């Protein structure tokens, strides 16, 4: 099964509202990365948060990490129609090898 699992599977909001997506994982990690994917195209890197960090910001994005609960959240503030996409979290627990992805949250932002 996947290491990371996003919740909810789908989220629909109005433009201007905030969107929160959650990611849970099962084993200890070195870092966690959030990605955006538009319509089955390549993944766009959003934020990397390391296991010794609790919160990071990038523009309208805020990511938190709670290693005790093995969970992370991605908050998009003041959402725009262009934020409509699938969002994935990916965890990495070794220096080499794989990043493990969940199945994503599909966000729809209605104009």
């Amino acid at each position, binding site marked *: 099964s996947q290491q990371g699992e996003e919740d909810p599977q789908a989220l629909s909001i109005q433009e201007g509202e905030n969107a929160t997506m959650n990611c849970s994982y099962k084993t200890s990690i070195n870092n966690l990365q959030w990605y955006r994917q538009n319509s089955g195209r*390549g*993944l*766009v890197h959003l934020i990397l948060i390391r296991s010794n960090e609790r919160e990071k910001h990038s523009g309208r994005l805020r990511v938190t990490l709670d290693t005790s609960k093995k969970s992370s959240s991605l908050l998009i503030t003041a959402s725009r129609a262009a934020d409509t996409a699938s969002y994935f979290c*990916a965890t*990495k627990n070794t220096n*080499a*090898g*794989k990043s493990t*992805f969940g199945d994503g949250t599909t966000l729809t932002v209605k104009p």
Partner: protein
Amino acid sequence: DAGVTQSPTHLIKTRGQQVTLRCSPISGHKSVSWYQQVLGQGPQFIFQYYEKEERGRGNFPDRFSARQFPNYSSELNVNALLLGDSALYLCASSLDLAYSYEQYFGPGTRLTVT
């Protein structure tokens, strides 16, 4: 600087055929990874290469192979194609192996097996 590039963009093959997908990492990046993404799911790890050596392998059959060249570009080969190999194949590069480095993805190659 150019991002990760992949070729071809789309590919249609018949069952039993062989396919080669290509990836060029971001300039200066030494690590390349390959992922398979089936519709509706997250990417699944196939391989990671660093300095031309395989450094990680996912749970894929031996029909899947890859290599990395001295210029850090990479090829993914899939032999004896099955219908289930139809997917988006993503290449990702990172500066180095250390976990602190971000991983950047290319646009992917959409493979359809008929």
